[in-house]
């Protein structure tokens, strides 16, 4: 990250600690935090949502479509949560079913064919658990969504805008550049899930959150995230318009950088980026 980028988007002092991790989890889940559609209606000059996976149905937990973003056509895919009880239920709390991932793949492939960049917005507590989801191929859908993004010839930018939990998040998170909002969290499992398994007590979620190091600055330090996107003072929920402006600026900057790379090199670079992730001794 260049110095100008640091200045432009802010860079955050290491704070660490249990309280900060849990604070981030709460902000990431804040019910007034902007969701995918809140951002799309603010950053796109036009956006047409597309529906259905052409096989089973349409998954309201995933929004996918094509839009016009600052002068160019872009394909957008994001998790979608609901704000009130009715909407939350309709959106299944932002937990996608296989149909959602297949709809996403359809739009990724469309973008690849037409040469549009892809922008994905991550905000999910995880893929939907359920008998039907398993029968309709949840594992395979998540794996193939990653593979589809790994191979598209067009630029891919991903941003964690809220909760990025488990494979349900990563399914749309394979990108040339991975961004993360200042108060978003990115984890292998929800703190509650981790606490239930490792501490045998979901009530230990705060300790689990601290141990998982889910904050944007931790993810940046671990090499999982390339850039932290600033939020308005107090969090994105305080000022949707400003949050969208900051996100839009970050996406535009990243698209300009990554679009300049030749497609074959970009694809190889995307693979190499994920290939290099991890920490081990030899």
């Amino acid at each position: 990250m260049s110095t100008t980028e640091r200045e432009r988007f802010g860079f955050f002092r290491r704070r660490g600690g249990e309280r900060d991790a849990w604070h981030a989890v709460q902000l990431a889940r804040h019910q007034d935090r902007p969701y995918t559609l809140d951002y799309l209606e603010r950053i796109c000059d036009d956006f047409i949502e597309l529906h259905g996976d052409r096989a089973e149905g349409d998954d309201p937990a995933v929004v996918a479509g094509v839009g016009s973003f600052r002068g160019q056509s872009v394909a957008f895919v994001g998790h979608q949560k609901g704000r009130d009880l009715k909407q939350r239920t309709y959106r299944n709390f932002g937990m996608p079913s296989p149909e959602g991932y297949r709809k996403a793949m359809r739009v990724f492939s469309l973008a690849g064919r037409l040469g549009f960049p892809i922008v994905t917005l991550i905000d999910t507590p995880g893929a939907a658990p359920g008998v039907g989801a398993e029968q309709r191929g949840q594992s395979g859908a998540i794996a193939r969504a990653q593979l589809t993004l790994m191979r598209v010839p067009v630029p891919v930018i991903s941003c964690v805008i809220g909760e990025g939990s488990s494979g349900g998040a990563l399914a749309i998170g394979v990108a040339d550049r991975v961004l993360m909002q200042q108060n978003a969290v990115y984890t292998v499992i929800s703190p509650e899930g981790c606490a239930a398994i490792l501490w045998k007590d979901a009530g230990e979620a705060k300790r689990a959150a601290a141990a998982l190091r889910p904050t944007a600055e931790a993810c940046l330090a671990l090499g999982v995230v390339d850039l932290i996107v600033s939020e308005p003072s107090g969090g994105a929920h305080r000022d949707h318009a400003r949050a969208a402006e900051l996100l839009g600026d970050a996406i535009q900057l990243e698209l300009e950088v990554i679009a300049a790379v030749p497609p074959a090199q970009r694809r190889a670079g995307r693979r190499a980026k994920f290939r290099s992730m991890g920490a081990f001794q030899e």
Partner: protein
Amino acid sequence: MAQNINVDISRTDEPNGKGEPAHRTRNTCPTCASHYREDEMVRNLRVCTNCGHHFPVTARERILQLVDDGSFAEIAAGLHSSDPLGFTDSRPYPERVDAAMRSTGLRDAAVVGAAAIGGTPVALAVMDFSFLGGSMGSVVGEKFARAADLALERRLPLVSVAASGGARMQEGVLALMQMAKTVASVDEMQEAGRPFISVLVHPTTGGVAASFAALGDVVIAEPGALLSFSGPRVVKQTTGESLPDDFGLSESNFRHGHVDLIVPRPELRDMVARVAAILAGGTPYRPPSLVGEIDPVGAIGRALAGARRRVTGVRPFRNGGPHVDD
């Protein structure tokens, strides 16, 4: 909320399972209570000859079962995990890893290398559930990637045997990224036109089920294995749904089109050899059992097939997949 990556499994026969001490339960069939001496277990490929129950198999024993004698050459054996997050729950993560290393004799939950199966050279990646629930952290991800590199360098098919509760939580978001890392390797294999055979055994769930393991050109499952993204307990707790008896099992996955073949362990070596030979474009592999040679593995397989039919009313179809008797 959703605890999608979880190692809870309703079966109790896992090496790490709770209940009675391992030495008393390890060789007792949880389905029919038949008990076996250790040498019988090895000879039976850890399949109950009475009811066909498939016991867990360690990575080293799995390799012995699958590959041609003396053909396995391990690579990346020195990889071991670091502690990128400084993770501590009731015990520090490095202590858990040390304990798993001592109890299994492995350095992590996967063993990879070059081998021959039925005469076809392959790159092989085998997971071990007894090492921290077969969880995938940085070492497992890297080992899978190295096995794929080997397949690409030598132009070999890649064969993986998955057995995993999912991503290793103690490595946090880096464990999650191993999913994408293994997918990147599969992408390279596909681009290079090298075949990938994915074998799924009990249990394959969470982050492993939803990454490389789902992406085989041919996907083979052992019978009765739990193969799901979310474990049954999580589904029950989160959704309140009542689960079908075969929730997430190989047979259910087969019925819904997610696996190509269900192959009982005694027939697995021959099937992998046949698939590998054809996908590699070489001479077809003719199992000794089909050319009239004495084949103790095949004989056991037939005995097991009979036993399974008696118990479940389902017998393995010659080319995999359950076949319900009339």
